């Protein structure tokens, strides 16, 4: 949670993904969207901001790499959603290098979409970290013209023999489309969810998403209804990463 300046406008901190760890610091990625991000763009080196974090969970990578020898994980990023999956792309690259000693092809299959070429990160770095990088833009100014779901369907077709583990971060309609497609395939998929957030520490209950109830202490045989029950979970505490199959859209 980042607060650019003291005062009442903007009032609340805003959630950001940890984009990159660099020597002596961290990097956050933002797109100028409102007052807060405009203020960030006006910061100079040495300015002080207030940061609360890191908060919440992370993408689970265990298993992804071992399964990767048969089918590399697929990482889907929409817009600034790339910030949250970037460290994942890096760590999968690292883990697969170590486990396969394959210096050429270690890494995930990355599908990266944005509205226009201008909103894409430097692609060379991503290319070096991924097994394959597929890019698309809404206007065709870079990569394929279209959206990440179209690319996903061609890269992981419905008739795919071995299903990859998938990870996605981006706008809600994109996540929903990915979740629905992954659900039809039966592919294990993790989504990083976003909601309006006030505190970031689990108190305000503002940032909830509707999820299927795990029903740990529910006797399924006793009540069929229970298996269809749902509950709200907090993006800041139980998330932001959820199993795609657990989200109720």
């Amino acid at each position: 949670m980042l607060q650019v300046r003291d005062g009442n406008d903007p009032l609340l901190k805003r959630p950001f993904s940890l984009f990159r760890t660099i020597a002596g610091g961290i990097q956050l990625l933002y797109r100028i969207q409102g007052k807060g991000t405009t203020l960030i763009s006006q910061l100079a080196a040495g300015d002080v901001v207030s940061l609360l974090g890191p908060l919440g969970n992370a993408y689970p990578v265990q298993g992804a790499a071992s399964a990767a020898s048969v089918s590399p994980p697929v990482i889907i990023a929409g817009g600034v959603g790339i910030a949250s999956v970037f460290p994942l792309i890096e760590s999968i690259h690292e883990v697969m290098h170590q486990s396969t000693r394959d210096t050429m092809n270690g890494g995930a299959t990355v599908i990266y979409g944005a509205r226009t070429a201008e909103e894409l990160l430097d692609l060379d770095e991503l290319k070096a970290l991924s097994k394959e990088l597929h890019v698309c833009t809404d206007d065709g100014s870079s990569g394929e013209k279209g959206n990440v779901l179209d690319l996903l369907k061609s890269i992981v077709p419905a008739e795919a023999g071995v299903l990859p583990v998938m990870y996605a971060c981006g706008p809600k309609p994109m996540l929903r489309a990915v979740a629905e497609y992954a659900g039809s395939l039966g592919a294990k998929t993790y989504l990083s969810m976003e909601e309006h957030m006030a505190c970031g520490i689990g108190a305000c209950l503002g940032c909830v998403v509707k999820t299927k109830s795990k029903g740990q202490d529910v006797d399924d045989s006793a009540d069929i209804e229970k298996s269809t029950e749902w509950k709200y979970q907090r993006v800041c505490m139980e998330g932001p990463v959820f199993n795609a199959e657990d989200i109720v859209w």
Partner: protein
Amino acid sequence: MVDSVSVNLEVTIGNLKLKNPVMSASGTFGYGPEYAEFADLSRLGAIVVKGLSLEPKEGNPPPRIVETASGMLNAIGLQNIGISAFIKEKIPLLKYFNTPVIVNFFGDSIDEYAQAAERLDGVDGIHALEMNISCPNKQAGWAVFGTDPAITSKVVTAVRNKTRMPLIVKLSPNVTDIGLMARVAEDSGADALSLINTLTGMAIDVRTRRPKLSNVRGGLSGPAIRPVAIRMVYDVYKVVKIPLIGMGGIMNTDDALEFIMAGATAVAVGTANFVNPGTTIEIIDGLSSFMKKEQIKEICSLTGVAHTG
């Protein structure tokens, strides 16, 4: 010398003695332990926990919050784990802190309020009750309890009959005459009043042309409402004898002092906890520094000073 002044921050609400007048506002502090990492909970005057009902409540669908000019709208929908789970799971954790626990509660009928009060009364680890009367009444077409003097009288009386604990009534500010509602609550047996709850508001996304909150309306909080809250505390102080707990956009020590000078015996910090989870502690220290600087020995001597002269 200035440093030699010893200051007394103690205040009394009903028969409940607080080591200082700074508490959390219900709904902004979770059940308490959420903030243990950021604020020394044993230093707070009291912990006011998130509103509880007899049965757990799921709350509203998202979006539940939206930031507005110097404030925020929330429509959480009173999501809570229910009184029984609170007593079983949270009270044992709260007992670690040497701080009184004030339980905020609500119901959707007078009977449910009374049952909730009965369930909470005398529970070890609970020191006072704060009833939220800004919620809708099932038996009156979902009209808000706290906007009708007759209903307010009935619901407060019903709760009063079920508990001997200090009873704080949290007033709704969405009324024409806050003084009237305050007198009604006092006459019905309240030991203290909390004011103000959030002001009903709404915001629209001009691109989608739809309300920004899924619940359409929400409660406005934050510094935007502070002048309204100060005025209401000032007005109510004139017409009741019971202590007032002032709240509404308190972000720092000066804001807290404003409420105290308007007539509050204690103050509650709400939205500021979201911005800076250490705000309560900073205000406790700030009050102490202010008193030393101004050579004030008793914080209670400042209550209502804006009325004199």
